[in-house]
């Protein structure tokens, strides 16, 4: 902090950000060390939160301590002891002796972070609890921040997190990596949780800005961390690449008024070239060296979009081929839906509509507006203005996303036939 002029708001902002980044990098390491020493994941997690809050208040004023990790361990350790004291004056008094922060080497930090991720994404938890716990224990976000991100009251989120910790404890989870036979499956859950965090941020990113951490940014940070820990896992690389290649379009996804801009109409010069380059490199080095999986394929598809200089130059046959592979290894209605779009781009809207029709009876799609929205676009491309308008309106009624609703209503309004004036209150 010595090189910062405290009077300059820009550099003060940078300094604050640096402290936040450092704190959140250290959060899972400190927690891992504490849990390894004392067990009691839930108590340790509370203690680390307190230490993070104390640091967030103190470091910007006093400067970052020379050994920030030890500082956090000491404060968290003290808080843990306080907790125990208040629970029972006698119980575990000897623990105070074990709280010397210099005692343990950071050699296991990386494993600890990984173990924590597996623990927070425990199969006994509901997805919403997995998300919340991961963001707090591994991401180092405060309950208030997580609550703001998910648009629920802080008390609700606090309950959700404490219930989640209780459930992890009751499930008898141990602070160690899952045994090898389960590990692939458990890693799949971890990846899915990070994917959900990303999507939550991506779907709500227009208009709604988080105070400290956008969920997409946080998801990318966690995926990057996981990639560092497991560099040869193809699906981890694939997920990170998918996030980077998707988030790269963020600035172009909405216009100045916050309205959605579809991919075909986006100003590509607004795309983040550095993120695209990083994602592309990940896709290139991963494909062929690891067993192919759905995240890698989706990343490859995003890469084809991102490398096209314009919408017209998009290599749709390549995208269609990739969706074909995806359909074979991980079939599902969402894949069929995307394949219908690609099919329409290669073989015309009628071909796309025919494939889309196969989803009409699929119950898994009953709760989403997306098939209807795709149908609307394809009908519009096919020149069926009346049908397209009807589908846009149907899709608008189905979506719970306000920006989507507005986008679809506007598309419908553009296709509107002049109608006789009606009494709006009638």
């Amino acid at each position: 902090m010595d090189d910062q002029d405290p009077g300059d708001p820009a550099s003060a902002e940078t300094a604050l950000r640096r402290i936040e980044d450092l704190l959140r990098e250290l959060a899972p390491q400190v927690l891992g060390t504490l849990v390894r020493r004392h067990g009691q994941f839930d108590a340790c997690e509370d203690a680390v939160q307190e230490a993070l809050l104390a640091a967030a208040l103190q470091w910007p004023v006093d400067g970052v301590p020379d050994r920030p990790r030890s500082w956090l361990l000491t404060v968290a350790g003290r808080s843990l002891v306080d907790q125990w004291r208040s629970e029972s004056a006698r119980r575990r008094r000897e623990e105070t002796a074990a709280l010397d922060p210099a005692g343990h080497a950071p050699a296991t930090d990386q494993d600890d972070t990984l173990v924590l991720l597996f623990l927070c994404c425990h199969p006994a938890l509901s997805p919403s609890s997995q998300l919340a716990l991961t963001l707090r224990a591994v991401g180092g976000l405060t309950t208030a921040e997580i609550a703001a991100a998910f648009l629920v009251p802080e008390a609700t989120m606090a309950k959700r997190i404490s219930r989640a910790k209780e459930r992890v404890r009751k499930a008898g989870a141990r602070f160690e990596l899952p045994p090898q036979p389960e590990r692939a499956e458990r890693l799949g859950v971890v990846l899915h949780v990070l994917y959900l965090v990303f999507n939550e941020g991506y779907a709500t990113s227009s208009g709604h800005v988080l105070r400290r951490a956008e969920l997409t940014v946080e998801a990318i940070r966690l995926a990057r961390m996981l990639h560092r820990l497991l560099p040869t896992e193809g699906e981890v690389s694939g997920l990170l690449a998918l996030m980077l290649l998707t988030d790269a379009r963020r600035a172009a996804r909405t216009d100045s008024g916050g309205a959605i801009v579809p991919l075909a109409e986006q100003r590509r010069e607004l795309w983040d070239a550095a993120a695209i380059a990083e994602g592309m490199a990940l896709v290139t080095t991963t494909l062929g060296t690891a067993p192919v999986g759905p995240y890698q394929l989706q990343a490859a598809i995003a890469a084809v979009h991102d490398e096209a200089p314009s919408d017209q130059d998009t290599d749709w046959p390549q995208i269609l081929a990739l969706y074909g592979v995806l359909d074979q290894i991980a079939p599902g209605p969402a894949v069929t839906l995307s394949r219908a779009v690609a099919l329409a781009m290669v073989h015309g809207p009628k071909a796309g509509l025919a494939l889309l029709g196969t989803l009409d009876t699929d119950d898994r799609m009953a709760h989403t507006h997306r098939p209807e929205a795709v149908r609307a676009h394809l009908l519009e491309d096919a020149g069926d203005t009346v049908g397209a308008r009807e589908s846009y309106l149907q899709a608008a009624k189905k979506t719970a996303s306000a920006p989507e609703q507005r986008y679809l209503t506007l598309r419908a309004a553009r296709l509107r036939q002049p109608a006789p004036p009606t009494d709006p209150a009638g």
Partner: protein
Amino acid sequence: MKYMIMMFGGLGATMENRTPEWITSMHEFMLKLDGELKEAGELVAGHGLVDPSQAKTVRFQNGAPVPTDGPFAEIKESLAGYWLVDVSEERAIEIASQVVAFTEYPMEVRQITHG
């Protein structure tokens, strides 16, 4: 005092026959009003609801709750969204009036019980 300001009608009812320009200006108006209420410290909560055509209604029939598709009331009488504001009744009515002037749809203002 806390008041709930309720808006009725579905997406279809309010927007179906509007021009793109009207829809855009309506959105801007709502964003602005939301911002003002937040800025003034008057807004407690506020949410829009999905179109009433997506609603499920649970009725007590033959001695048991029975869920069915669709809203209980006519769509134009169905709740579309609400603001919860911490203001005087006068101010609550003033807020509602601003919206009604724009949408031309009726709104209801009711005090929240306390204690």
